[in-house]
């Protein structure tokens, strides 16, 4: 049975579709017949939104403005939002991490070095960055922001040492490719990307 969270996620996904036509509605209704009424209602609301888009009534009376503002201010604010909050590796744990390495055609140890920010960000080839952002469903800018943060202690070290783990030094992407065990075809591809990056 569908949980309320799943239901909200399906309706959000339908609303986020770029086109709301017969085919999109039919696709969702076939996949989630138990949400048929909600999906039709949403299709109707989206049609209404499109019809009224751009139509402004001017200033509309908002009698609750001041009390809402006070409530908003009284809510303790969260720490400032920064790019550091986006953990691009969050969805890639365990088998998903191994699958990501496979998709990128690189050994897991190299992907671990990227995850732990042990590579100098400016040495990452553009071709690799693009393949990486495509594979993780992010953008090149998000990947760069992630890598630009301070390198972190390798995952798992906290459980293997008597002392507080400290971040290791960074290496260039080329150094990592040259020193990591991998197939010759993998190494050739990555070194070619390094070469193209260094020439630019």
């Amino acid at each position, binding site marked *: 049975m569908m949980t309320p969270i799943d239901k909200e996620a399906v309706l959000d996904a339908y609303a986020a579709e770029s086109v709301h036509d017969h085919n999109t509605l039919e696709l969702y209704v076939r996949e989630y017949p138990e949400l048929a009424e909600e999906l039709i*209602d*949403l299709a*109707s609301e989206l049609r*209404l*939104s499109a019809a009224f888009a751009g139509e402004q009534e001017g200033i509309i009376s908002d009698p609750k403005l001041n009390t809402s503002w006070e409530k*908003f201010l009284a809510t303790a*604010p969260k720490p400032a939002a920064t790019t550091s909050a986006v953990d691009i590796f969050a969805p890639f744990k365990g088998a998903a991490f191994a699958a990501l390495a496979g998709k990128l055609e690189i050994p897991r140890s190299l992907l671990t070095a990227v995850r732990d920010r042990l590579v100098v960000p400016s040495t990452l080839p553009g071709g690799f960055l693009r393949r990486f952002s495509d594979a993780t469903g992010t*953008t090149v800018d998000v990947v760069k922001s992630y890598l630009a943060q301070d390198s972190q202690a390798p995952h798992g070290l906290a459980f293997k040492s008597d002392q507080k783990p400290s971040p290791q030094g960074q290496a260039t992407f080329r150094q990592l490719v040259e020193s990591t065990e991998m197939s010759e075809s993998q190494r050739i591809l990555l070194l070619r990307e390094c070469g193209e990056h260094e020439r630019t």
Partner: protein
Amino acid sequence: MANLPIAVPLRKREKDGRLYARPPEVEAVILDLSHLTKEEFIKRLKAEDSDDYVPSECLIYFVRRAPFESDSEVLFALFTAIRQRVLNAVPVPLHYISGEFKKAENCVDLDIRDAVLDKFQEMLCQDRQEYLERLDFFECRFNAAIARLRGTARRDICNDAAHLAPLAHDNETSEPNPKVEKALSCFMDSFESPKTDFLYRSKIHAAISSLPLEERRVVELFLEDIPIDSQETDTMTMVKILSCCEKTVRNRRDRAFAKLAEILNEEVA
């Protein structure tokens, strides 16, 4: 605005795992606004001409990230502006009061507008405490996100109102009613024709939104070209989607179009 040099990436992910992304034009306005002084920023929020108009997606971005070190004057201007955008995105059309020659707002529409604004306020407060990924969609497609809230509010309010409304019987005749067939044909002609006036089209939408949910659903499926029934087992039909018999669907359709014809005739008159 030195503390926000780039647009902060979103965190919500789509079904396929990709991060939600704002449209490039929204990102461009965010970057543009990030370079303004406080006075310029507040002035820009009030701009109405198309060149300087700030999209609602950008207003949400800045409300969530409290620019100018949470300056309360700026934040209040943003807060007021975004609430106005929410109110505008929940239209409350005027309808003729039956038996009188004047128009008034429908209390159900007003309740829906209130419920949407309350839910939006609740989400803003939650996000202020702890990042609420659901608000990311508002930074990408504000009107669609409000349509989501409106859909939920309408269902809740109309379901409550349905308890007080007289029952509509579905066991009426299933014979085609010539008057309804004519109304339906006129309605579809004016709905689909590109020559239809924008105002008249808005009136059609307002009239559809005033229908009871069961009838509104049949109209929506009708507009999506979904057949009432079909001999082909694989075809998606209203009978299958709504889990009711063909006669019930036809009766709902007839009631809906009779009401729409009546409302639109009053408008034209």
